[in-house]
């Protein structure tokens, strides 16, 4: 006599593997906890109770990139930091997603012209899935970006990456 015997005989769900896997991936995005500049403050505010990123299952900010699958590039990337950001991205395990948060991570922002030290956008070093404009974007914008990413993930199929 097992524990589940005769208890679930009338309940079963038929679905596709894609739908099931994407459902799991989209609703448990674990971000790496790191911030580069002032956008990180908005990211922290998004994690707190008022905006509550936990509503989307993305509240588990992991201190290790190996346990995370979402990278929120929150802030200005200087050239000195660029190699570190790339290293963190490479340490994350597949499947991994990147959100460029704020003007700096999207395009260099206010430093786009005549700046010797700032990388002109995260997409020069790592592939970016969602761009969130703003300087810094409000927590609502970050959540909107997160929902856009979830929408993207739900469309994917495991047959091709």
């Amino acid at each position, binding site marked *: 006599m097992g524990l589940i015997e005769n208890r679930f005989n009338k309940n079963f769900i038929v679905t596709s593997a894609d739908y099931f896997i994407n459902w799991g991936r989209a609703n448990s995005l674990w971000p790496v906890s790191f911030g580069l500049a002032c956008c990180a403050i908005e990211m922290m505010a998004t994690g707190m109770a008022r905006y509550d990123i936990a509503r989307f299952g993305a509240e588990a900010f992991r201190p290790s990139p190996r346990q995370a699958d979402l990278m929120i590039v929150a802030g200005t990337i200087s*050239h*000195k930091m*660029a*190699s570190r950001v790339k290293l963190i991205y490479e340490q994350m395990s597949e499947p991994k997603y990147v959100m460029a948060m704020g003007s700096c991570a999207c395009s260099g922002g206010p430093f786009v012209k*005549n700046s*010797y*030290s700032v*990388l*002109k956008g995260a997409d*020069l*070093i790592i592939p970016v899935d969602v761009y969130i404009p703003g300087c810094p974007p409000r927590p609502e914008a970050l959540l909107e970006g997160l929902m856009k990413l979830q929408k993207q993930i739900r469309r994917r199929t495991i047959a091709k990456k």
Partner: protein
Amino acid sequence: MNASEIFEKLKARSREDIEFQDSPLLPFIKVKPDSIRNVADILRNNTDFRFDSLMCLTTVDNPTNFTIVYLLYSMKHSHKITLKVETPKDNAVVPSVEKVWSAANWFEREVYDLFGVRFEGHSNLVRIMLPDDWEGHPLKKDYQYPATYRGVVL
């Protein structure tokens, strides 16, 4: 003490060649590069001055020279003074004041990093903010922007 009183007292205490320039915003004492170590030592250790805090050390890129600016503050007497040292642009070398104020360590590295002014006697004069393999000193007026850095377009 106000700035001119500090200068008069300093003039009496040291044999160095120093000048005073008064201004309502930032009265300063002009010091020759060779005398900065002695002047700093007197200002730091003499009980009348006791400038125990080096608030800032920075540089101005003038057309003919670099002017190193030292902003000093005394926690004990609550008075402040500014020192200025001029150095030629082609061979910018100034004695380090790291032994007098240890805060000067990072300030001098920053000035070296961004302006290329070398500080003689500094214990670890390497770049502090830019990557170690960076070429040139970006806050100089004649700085030429490189086209790329490690394959990434600037």
